[in-house]
């Protein structure tokens, strides 16, 4: 139908996720995002199955594709074997590759995700690492986490973890050879380029918005994208 639609079909998740929709709404009925956001997975699938490139570009620029929480509850129930959550993943990927993600408030947050979870994988070998979960950025974690964070070595030692030390165990330090292997995997599978794409488009957007941009977690643009909730995201 269109070039973008063909491109989406190159993604196996799109092929697996989009069969044919009869608009019955079982997905939206139990979707955690549909209740708290202006989000309707039924409509996404229904739009995508007949969309021309213009409509797809609108979606790639939209807020709505960023509302899904990836719980995949939709997949279990669909009577036609669609998986709206996979369709969303393919759309989000394309939105980032083509730079449309910086046009929406929720899409711009991808930089923050790249710089936290994404960078953690290469830096520590883990998606989540205790020292990065600072109580100031995670007040909702409460006083017990604050206590763990402040006394991490003592707490983790007490519980038999192996924090920041080589060898087996929870939170062990991942050795350099392994981190090099991870980096090589990222390089060969194009994820390092993908990270760069996210950085580059974000930098351009920061300039457009007149916000300070550097590679720290605390630059103006990072603060803006992680805390701002301006648009009407609920129905």
């Amino acid at each position, binding site marked *: 139908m269109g070039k973008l639609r063909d491109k989406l079909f190159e993604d196996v998740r799109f092929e697996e996720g989009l069969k044919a929709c009869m608009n019955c*709404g079982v997905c939206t009925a139990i979707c955690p995002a549909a209740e708290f956001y202006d989000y309707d997975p*039924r409509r996404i699938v229904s739009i995508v199955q007949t969309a021309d490139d213009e409509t797809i570009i609108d979606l790639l620029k939209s807020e709505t594709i960023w509302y899904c929480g990836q719980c995949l509850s939709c997949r279990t129930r669909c009577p036609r074997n669609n998986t709206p959550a996979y369709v969303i993943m393919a759309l989000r990927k394309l939105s980032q590759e083509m730079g449309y993600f910086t046009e929406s408030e929720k899409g711009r947050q991808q930089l923050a995700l790249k710089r936290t979870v994404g960078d953690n994988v290469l830096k520590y070998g883990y998606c989540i690492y205790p020292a990065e979960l600072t109580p100031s950025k995670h007040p909702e974690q409460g006083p017990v986490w604050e206590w763990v964070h402040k006394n991490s070595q003592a707490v983790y030692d007490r519980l038999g973890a192996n924090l920041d030390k080589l060898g087996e165990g929870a939170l062990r330090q991942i050795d350099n050879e392994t981190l090099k292997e991870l980096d090589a995997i990222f390089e060969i599978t194009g994820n390092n380029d993908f990270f760069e794409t996210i950085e580059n488009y974000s930098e351009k957007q920061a300039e457009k918005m007149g916000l300070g941009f550097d590679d720290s977690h605390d630059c103006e643009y990072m603060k803006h994208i992680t805390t701002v909730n301006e648009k009407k995201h609920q129905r």
Partner: protein
Amino acid sequence: MRAYDTKYQTIIIGGGIAGMTAALQLYKFGIRVLIIEKEDNLGGHLNKWYKLFPGFVNADEVVSNIVSEINDKRIHNITSDEVISIDSIYDNYIVKTSSGHSFEAESVLLAQGFNTFDPTKKEEYGYGLYSNVKTSVEVEKILKEHSNITIPKRIGLIHCVGSRDEKAGNLHCSKLCCVSAVKQSIELKERFPDAEVICFYIDLRMFDNGFEELYMEAQVEHGIKFIRGRLSECSENIDGSLVLKVQDTLTGLPMNVSVDWLVLMVGKEAAKLPNLDKSIDLKLAPNRFVAPENIFYNPNQTSQPGIFCCGTVSGPKTIHESAADAKAAAMSIIDYLNRK
């Protein structure tokens, strides 16, 4: 025990509306027929139904009229016995039953109808788990037997249960559930005038004479509510009522509805076939119903010469469609026997 012949011109498997109507038609043309019915009585599913759409005729009345004609004409029939195998012998067939009968037939008419979908397969609907989840078949029984029950305040009827559902193994539309739901909503509303009755549908397929009119009557005169959305999950509240989660697809919003009764409009699935010997080549459609040799020119002939089909064995049909189909099948059989 009554005497049976060892050989018939046509053996009809199934003594429901289709099988009996075909038998009567064949009888009129002098064909010697035998009906074999697995249940204790002739009449098929109609014995379990209360009233028939769209005119609310008693199902019992229709059955007893046809059965008394079968009896008047002394048409041979066996009940409480099931055909277990069909073997071909030259250009005839040997039909064996579970009680040990064995008959030779010049032709066989498949008229064993359909099975209803087993709703425990739709685990998220809670059938078998929550006592207030019922099937449309059980509702017919409740209506028919006027049994004493706690009066529900709100009833939800779910269309397309086990139909149009790849996960349930059925891609096809069962065709009759839409109008059955409308019929049952009216009956439930009449039985429980203070109850609110809601149909949850995806499409309303009111395809036949009087169906759309019945739908309008349900809306205007009985105040039945129609919500477009498929049930995603049913769970039980602490007070035993049920919460239905659907999307109200027309407003686009998720919706929770609490009901006292949930009625599942169970779909129609192909009936089990007897064992067929290897030389018999009987083709089935992708939905597992018997496939006619040619749906335009020879709709009652199967892919195997001498084996015919009528009624819901080849797909969901209304009563009058089954009856018409049975008469047509009889004519095809007569034609076949004449050429033989």
